[in-house]
């Protein structure tokens, strides 16, 4: 009788171990895939930028600084090595693109140009895709980390060789700071 109970107990533990191991492996692969998705979207953005700059170059001749800033930021982003470096350089690229789009608003000829409008749509679409790819990565990485940390999986996760995934964070303190709005003057 005692032997039977022990057998059942061992069986239950084995089934639980296999199930949680498989679940963790599945999540780990999803996390890796989520990370690659971010790269895919970043690459799309790099490919799109020369088109955008060419389309607006004629009408924005005297905004040369803004345009070169974008191209330089892109060139730097292409040479990025490692996640931390990439995060910093892609952040700089995002900022320079934001400035370009803001400046472009001042040119009525640009705003009514269908090609430019289409490119702007492509660009904001790409910016969003990069953002949502990061959001998905963080969501799935959080799920993966939670799965490792809940009891009783936390007892085995370390032994099975699982490490918590790093979350994607804004590196620049300036990006995180909430802009202060002064309503007292106007």
């Amino acid at each position, binding site marked *: 009788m005692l032997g039977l109970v022990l057998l059942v107990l061992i069986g239950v533990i084995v089934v639980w171990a296999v199930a949680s191991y498989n679940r963790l492996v599945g999540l780990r692969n999803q996390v890796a895939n989520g990370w690659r998705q971010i790269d895919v979207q970043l690459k799309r953005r790099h490919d799109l930028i020369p088109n955008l700059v060419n389309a607006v170059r004629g009408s924005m001749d005297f905004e040369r600084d803004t345009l070169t800033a974008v191209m330089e930021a892109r060139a730097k982003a292409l040479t990025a090595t490692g996640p931390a470096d990439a995060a910093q350089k892609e952040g700089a690229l995002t900022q320079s693109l934001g400035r370009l789009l803001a400046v472009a608003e001042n040119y009525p000829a640009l705003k009514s140009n269908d090609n430019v409008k289409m490119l702007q*749509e492509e660009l904001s679409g790409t910016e969003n895709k990069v953002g949502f790819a990061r959001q998905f990565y963080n969501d799935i990485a959080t799920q993966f980390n939670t799965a490792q940390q809940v009891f009783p999986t936390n007892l085995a996760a370390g032994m099975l060789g699982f490490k918590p995934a790093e979350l994607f964070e804004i590196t620049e303190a300036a990006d995180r700071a909430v802009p202060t709005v002064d309503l007292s003057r106007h």
Partner: protein
Amino acid sequence: MNLYDQQRSNRRKTWLIMIAFVAFLLLLGAGFDTFYIGAGGGVVPVGSLAALALGSVSAVVSYFSGDRAVLLSSHAQPIAEAAAQASDDEKLKLRQLDNVVDEMAIAAGLPRPPVYIVPDPDPNAFATGRGPGHASIAVTRGLLETLDREQLQGVIAHEMSHIRNYDVRMMTVVAALVGAVALLSDWARRGMWWGGGRRRDRDDRGGGAAGIIFFIVWLAAIVIAPLLAQVLAMMVSRRREYLADASGAELTRNPLGLASALETIDAAVEPTRAINSGTAHLCIADPLGREAHIGGGGWSGLFASHPPMADRIAALRAMAYQGSR
């Protein structure tokens, strides 16, 4: 409640309604077995199972071929085809829609569903298909024309959530249950015409007062069964709408985008004629339009596939408030 609380509560309520639904079917079936089949029924709920099997047939057929039928009946056109015939202005809008669907598929981590355009001036949208990988999203021309990018994103996120939450599958199960209840009720009523004699036999064999009370309750249940089944089905549908709103907000992290889209859609009073009311539970707004909700008061709400717009908008605003804390 923040959006995660709302998701949890809606999932829990869906299951409570489903349990009530199954219990109701079993009660009807138990009475059917007792009064018509007699002791032969035993522990196996013969009546319920037979009705459920028959009720499932049409539901399963529509599960596997329903998306094509729905797209066909609404004259939906693939987005690439629509873009080929579009003017420059429209092309921009279509490109925007294409991008927004891509964005939401990325945010949900799902394969990108094909997109269709429905030639109808009323703003509306629906998802159809079996679940991730086998689904399509369709939006009307009116929706493309009236909504801005942020609002469009909210609507697509809502539809993507219907796909991610397997709502088509959920509503297929509900349709099978509704069908089973209707069949049981139909059989019981027919049975009363020619089955009276056998019932008298059973009364002789006893059961006493409890048996008579059960018979009366069952008789009443049979009469209102089809109506009650419809009410339960619509309760599930409304829960899934709230859930899709909350899951959509999780995708965009911008509940106010969908809230303002709903306000715009609500302002368009016209019904969406191109969309069959059978697809209502997968639309962003009831295709019957506001007529379905205004005027009827409390009772008309029981048969509505969607919760009142004002309640949905309030729930989304509450999420935005909770999210910013």
